[in-house]
C-alpha cells in the first residue's frame, strides 16, 4: 500500500501550490514557501521521509494525485462530494473562507449583487465550484488556469472582482498591490484538507493521526501564526 | 515636330557606361528598327524611353513633354508610349481579355463594359477575339505575344516600343506576330523595335538605327543601311548577322 511504499522509499512526494500565497508562493530564490509547504514538512518529518515538493495548479492537483505522480496533495484543497468520488480526504488542517473580493468603490453585498458583473476565479478550485452554484445567471465568470492567472487578471484590471480565499486576499494586500481586494461577501467556509489517493486507508489514518497530534501539541498553531497571523480557529 | 526626341542620353550601371550619349528624333508614324550586337545597349535605350530605367544625363521628350522620374510624369509618359517585351509578360492569373482590360480599368478608370468592349476590339485586331477567356498558359507563345500587343494597344498609345518581341518564339510562330506589327505600321502607328529580323526591318521600317557600344553608330533608311553600310562595325555586324 501507499504508506509502506513511502516508508520504504523514504521519500514523500507532495503537491503544493506555488501561486497561492500565503499557502504557497515563492521567495526571491524561487523556493516554495507557505502554510502548505510547512504542513508538508511536518508530515514528512513525522513519516521520517525526505520531502519532495511538486508545484501544482488548482486545476491539475487532483489529476496529479489520481495518476500517482504524488502521494499527497497539500494544496489548500477543499472538500466536496464530487471530489470525494475520486480521492480521499484527511481531516482539516487549515481554515479557509471563500469570498468575493473587489476594490472598495465597487458595491457588491451578496451573490445576487454579482448580476451583470464579471468575476475571475481559478478553474477547478472550490471557489469555482461554489461560485458557479450561487452566481446569478447574468454574472460572467472568467476561469483562469491557475491562481497566477486569476490574481494577474485582477491586478491588471482584466476582472473587477475575484473569488478567492480571505487569506489569499490578505496576502495580496500585504504586498501593497496597485489594486486592493476587499472582502465583499463570504461564499463558503471551506477548510483545507489533505488529498489522498482513493482507498489508501493506512495512509489516511497515519496522516489524520499526524494532524491530530499537531493540533494538540501546538505545532499546527505555530504554522498558522506564521502564515495567517492568527490562531487556529477552535472549530477546526 | 518630332514625337520622340532623345538628346545626349547617358546611362550608367555602376561604373559601366551603357549608353554614352544618344541622339535620335522620331517623327510621328515612323517605324524604327534598332539593330546591334548583344550588349550594345538596345534594350537599355528602349527601357529609358519607357522610364523603366532612370536616366543619368541628357533628356527625352515625348510629344513635347519632358521625361521626369516622378510618378505623375512617368504615368503621363507611359500612357503615351506602350512597351512590349521579349518574354510577353502576360499576367498569368488573368484571362486574355482581363489582361487587356486591367490597365484601362485601373489606370484610366474606364468602366468595365467599356474596357471589355475595347479589349474585344483589340483582341480582334490581333486576330484573337475567340481567345478572350483563355488563360495565358493555354495560349501558344505567338498568341501570348499578340495578346501583349493588344494589351498595349488598349491604352491607345501614340507610340509602341518593342524589344525583340519575336526572339522567344519558336520559328513557326514568328510570322504571326510580325504580321500584326506590319499591320500596325501600315495603320500609321509610331514604332521603335529592337529586332534581329533583318528581312522584316528592311521591308517594313522607315529607318534603321545601328547601335554600337552605347552609341548610335549609323542611321538611315533600310536600303542604305543594309546595302551600303558605311562603318566597318556595321559591315562586320551585317556580315555575320541575318541579313
Amino acid at each position, binding site marked *: 500500500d501507499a504508506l509502506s511504499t513511502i516508508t520504504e522509499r523514504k521519500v514523500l512526494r507532495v503537491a503544493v501550490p506555488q501561486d497561492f500565497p500565503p499557502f504557497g508562493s515563492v521567495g526571491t530564490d524561487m523556493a516554495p514557501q507557505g502554510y502548505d509547504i510547512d504542513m508538508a514538512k511536518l508530515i514528512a518529518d513525522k513519516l521520517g521521509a525526505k520531502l519532495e515538493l511538486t508545484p501544482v495548479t488548482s486545476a491539475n492537483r487532483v489529476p496529479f494525485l489520481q495518476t500517482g505522480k504524488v502521494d499527497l496533495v497539500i494544496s489548500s484543497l477543499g472538500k466536496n462530494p464530487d471530489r470525494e468520488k475520486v480521492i480521499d480526504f484527511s481531516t482539516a488542517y487549515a481554515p479557509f473562507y471563500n469570498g468575493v473580493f473587489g476594490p472598495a468603490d465597487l458595491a457588491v453585498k451578496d451573490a445576487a449583487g454579482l448580476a451583470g458583473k464579471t468575476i475571475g476565479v481559478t*478553474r*477547478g478550485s472550490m471557489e469555482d465550484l461554489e461560485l458557479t452554484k450561487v452566481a446569478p445567471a447574468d454574472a460572467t465568470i472568467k476561469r483562469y488556469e491557475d491562481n497566477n492567472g486569476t490574481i494577474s487578471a485582477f491586478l491588471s484590471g482584466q476582472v473587477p472582482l475575484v473569488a478567492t480565499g480571505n487569506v489569499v486576499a490578505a496576502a495580496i494586500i500585504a504586498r501593497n498591490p496597485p489594486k486592493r481586494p476587499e472582502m465583499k461577501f463570504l461564499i463558503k467556509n471551506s477548510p483545507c484538507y489533505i488529498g489522498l489517493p482513493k482507498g489508501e486507508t493506512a495512509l489516511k489514518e497515519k496522516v489524520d493521526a499526524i494532524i491530530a497530534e499537531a493540533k494538540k501539541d501546538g505545532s499546527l498553531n505555530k504554522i498558522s501564526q506564521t502564515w495567517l497571523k492568527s490562531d487556529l480557529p477552535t472549530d477546526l | 515636330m518630332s514625337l520622340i526626341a532623345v538628346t545626349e542620353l547617358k546611362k550608367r550601371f555602376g561604373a559601366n557606361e551603357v549608353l554614352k550619349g544618344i541622339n535620335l528624333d522620331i517623327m510621328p508614324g515612323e517605324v524604327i528598327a534598332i539593330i546591334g550586337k548583344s550588349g550594345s545597349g538596345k534594350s537599355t535605350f528602349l527601357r529609358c524611353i519607357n*522610364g523603366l530605367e532612370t536616366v543619368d544625363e541628357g533628356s527625352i521628350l515625348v510629344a513635347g513633354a519632358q521625361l521626369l522620374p516622378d510618378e505623375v510624369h512617368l504615368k503621363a509618359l507611359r500612357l503615351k508610349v506602350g512597351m512590349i*517585351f521579349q*518574354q510577353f*509578360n502576360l499576367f498569368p*492569373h488573368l484571362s486574355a481579355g482581363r489582361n487587356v482590360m486591367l*490597365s484601362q480599368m485601373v489606370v484610366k478608370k474606364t468602366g468595365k463594359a467599356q474596357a471589355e468592349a475595347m479589349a474585344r476590339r483589340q483582341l480582334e485586331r490581333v486576330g484573337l477575339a475567340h481567345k478572350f477567356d483563355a*488563360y495565358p*498558359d493555354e495560349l501558344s507563345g505567338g498568341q501570348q505575344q499578340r495578346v501583349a500587343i493588344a494589351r498595349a494597344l488598349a491604352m491607345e498609345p501614340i507610340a509602341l516600343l518593342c524589344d525583340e518581341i519575336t526572339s522567344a518564339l519558336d520559328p513557326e510562330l514568328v510570322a504571326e506576330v510580325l504580321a500584326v506589327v506590319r499591320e500596325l505600321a501600315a495603320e500609321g502607328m509610331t514604332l521603335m523595335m529592337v529586332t534581329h529580323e533583318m528581312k522584316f526591318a528592311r521591308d517594313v521600317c522607315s529607318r534603321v538605327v545601328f547601335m554600337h557600344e552605347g552609341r548610335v553608330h549609323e542611321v538611315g533608311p533600310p536600303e542604305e543601311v543594309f546595302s551600303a553600310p558605311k562603318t566597318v562595325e556595321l559591315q562586320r555586324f551585317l556580315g555575320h548577322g541575318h541579313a
Partner: protein
Amino acid sequence: MAYVFDFTWLAEYWPLLVKGVRITLQLILIGGVLGVALGIACAWVRALGPKALRVPVAIYVELIRNTPFMIQLFFIFFGLPALGLQMGEMTAAYIAMVVNLGAYGCEIIRAGIAATPRGQFEAGASLAMTPFETFRHVVLVPSLQRIWPALSSQIVIVMLGSAVTSQIAVEDLTFAANFIQSRNFRAFETYLVSTALYLLLAIGLRQAMGLIGAAIFPKRSAR
C-alpha cells in the same frame, strides 16, 4: 493496471465542447482573415514599400517569430494594462493571433513576391500602373497562389496554437477540455476527445483553405 475508459460524461458536457469548437473556429476565422491581411501589408512594406517603414516592420516580424505565442499573449493580456491598454480576453486573443500570423504570413508572402518575375513589375509599369497598383492587381494574386500551401499550413499551426488562449480564460476548445476535466476528473478521456476534435478541425481547415484557393485562383491548365 486496468484502466476503464469512461465517456459517459460526454452526455452532460458536449454542449461545452461544441461551444469550445465554435470559439476556436471564431478565433481562427477572424485571426486568419485579419492576420493574412496584416501579413500582406507587411510583406508589401518589406518587399516594395516605403524604406522608412521597412526596419520597424522587420523588427516586428523578428520579435514575433522568435518568441513564444503564449508569452505574446500574456504580454498583451497581463502586461499591456500597465500601460493603460485594457482589453477583454477575446480581444487580446484576436490581437495576439493577428499579430502572430501577420509576422509569419509576412515572411511567407514575401517569398511569394520575391519569386515574381521582374517582367511582371515592368509590364505593370509600362501599362502606366503605379507600383502599388501593379502590386495590387498584378503581383499579389500569383504571389499568394505560389505560397498558398505554406500559408495554409501556417494558418493551421496558428489555429492549433490558439489552444493557449485558454490560459487567459478564452473559452475555446482547450478551455472546454480543461473545464470538463476539472469537473469530471476524467482527464485522459477528455483530452482524447478534444484532441480528436482538434485533428478534425485541422483537417477541415486545410480542406477549406484548398477550396478557398481553388475559388480565388484561376485553375491552370496542365501545361
